[in-house]
């Protein structure tokens, strides 16, 4: 199991065209079935790293996704296998109706209409939005938009889900609903978030970025014991412990 690497990143650096250095010598390996939380302050390079998973950005260094090196000729194959959900759902949902948006990926994959219809139906069911096919994105609430954005990649049957702040801008009920939907997906997941409760809930591993460098990479349980690290990144360690213990007790009962 452990040997099945789905993402391999070796000495990856990336500079934005204006000269800002966003990533410096980042090393990361993600194995099949893992859920990895990427944490860190604003501007640490989290999104930039995520954009390398499907070749939205191509930096200096070696990136291998599911055994395929990140090169121009592999992009089509890689994008089919990595479902990237952007932070702002208004960027992700560009079609006139929800159906068209969810169908966009499968249609581009060349599936026939019958299969596309089935995939759209299944993806919308997975995010709990059956019957929304004919609605327009601008008539949806923020939480519904986020769920449709997730459905657009679920419909593609990607092997890896890369989510950029999935619960950003959502109210507590909306983010809880979305967390439940994400939990039910079986893919390998990489999730950028500032929401530590989500990371604890969904992920078994935490990676910390700071100023473009990877500064920590540890299993989730170890993070919860590491009070100094939590405080260094501005998290309230006592509160997090309290939540974590409570959850564990609830699970035991």
């Amino acid at each position, binding site marked *: 199991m452990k040997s099945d690497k789905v993402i391999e990143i070796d000495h990856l650096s990336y500079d934005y065209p204006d000269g800002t250095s966003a990533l410096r010598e980042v090393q990361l390996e993600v194995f099949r079935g893992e859920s990895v939380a990427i944490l860190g302050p604003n501007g640490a390079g989290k999104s930039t790293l995520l954009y390398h998973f*499907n070749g939205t950005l191509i930096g200096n260094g070696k990136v291998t996704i599911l055994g395929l090196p990140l090169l121009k000729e592999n992009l089509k194959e890689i994008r089919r296998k990595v479902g990237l959900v952007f932070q702002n759902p208004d*960027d*992700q949902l*560009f079609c006139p109706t929800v159906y068209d948006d969810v169908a*966009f990926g499968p249609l581009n994959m060349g599936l026939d209409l019958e299969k596309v219809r089935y995939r759209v139906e299944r993806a919308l069911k997975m995010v709990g939005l059956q019957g929304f096919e004919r609605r*327009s*994105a601008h008539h949806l609430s923020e939480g519904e938009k986020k769920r449709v954005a997730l459905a657009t*990649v679920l419909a593609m049957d990607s092997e890896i889900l890369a989510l950029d702040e999935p619960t950003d801008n959502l109210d507590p009920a909306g983010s809880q609903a979305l967390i439940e939907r994400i939990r039910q997906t079986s893919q390998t997941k990489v999730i950028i978030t500032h929401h530590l409760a989500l990371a604890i809930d969904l992920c078994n591993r935490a990676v910390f970025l700071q100023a473009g460098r990877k500064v920590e990479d540890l299993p989730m349980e170890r993070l919860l014991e590491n009070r100094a690290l939590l405080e260094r990144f501005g998290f309230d360690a006592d509160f997090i412990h309290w939540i974590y213990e409570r959850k564990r007790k609830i699970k035991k009962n």
Partner: protein
Amino acid sequence: MRHEFLDHHSGLESPIHHLDPRAKILVFFAFILIGVSTPPHGFVIFILLAGGLISITRMARLPLFHLVKKLLLILPFLLVITASIPFMKKDTVAGGYNLGLGGLSLSRSGLWILWNVVVKSCLGVFCIILLYSTTPFPHLVKGLEKLGVPKVFTLLLSFMYRYSFLLVDEMHRMKRARDSRSFSRRWFWQLKTIGHMIGTLFLRSFCRAERVYVAMLSRGYHGAMPGVSLERFGSGEYLFIAIVPVLLFLRFFLG
């Protein structure tokens, strides 16, 4: 926020709303063509065309008064362009009306031109209002595409539709932010701010366009927008299209 300006009525239920968008586009296009090609003194045809449009409005269960109010929106533009024609045009043959105000005279042919422009624009715009009030925008775009409008245009239209709402929201947010920090109500002093706002809006739209394109690429976009097929073209559609030969008959035998 304020999204009602486009899809206010297009989601209603009525026989007209249920028609295939292609049929509606063809019929309203015929209305416009026949209206425009009618000579200005063809009052009978104008009345019949208006009657036809009003009956369609009734069948579509749309509030006529509301649509007419929308029509009034174009009048200022129309009048700015045409109001001077009757005064500027000089009749060669007698037939003008002298108003006696410093040599100001009203020309009869000028008045005909004014009537011609006003009645035809009103007819045309009313057709467009009726078309988008009875057809959801995505269907309209698909209908145009099926009728052979180049994909570049329909694609642009559908993006414009999708993002016009965000643009309007963004503008309202910026306006609110400005108003909460500015105390002068005089717009003249805010010209500089308005300039900045327009610039910011442009830059934000530009950046958004880049992000949207990346999102499209991420889901396998390779230059062609996958189309979704329209449904049936049944007897109702053919019946509705039958209005076109009737209009043609009116135009050539009554005009």
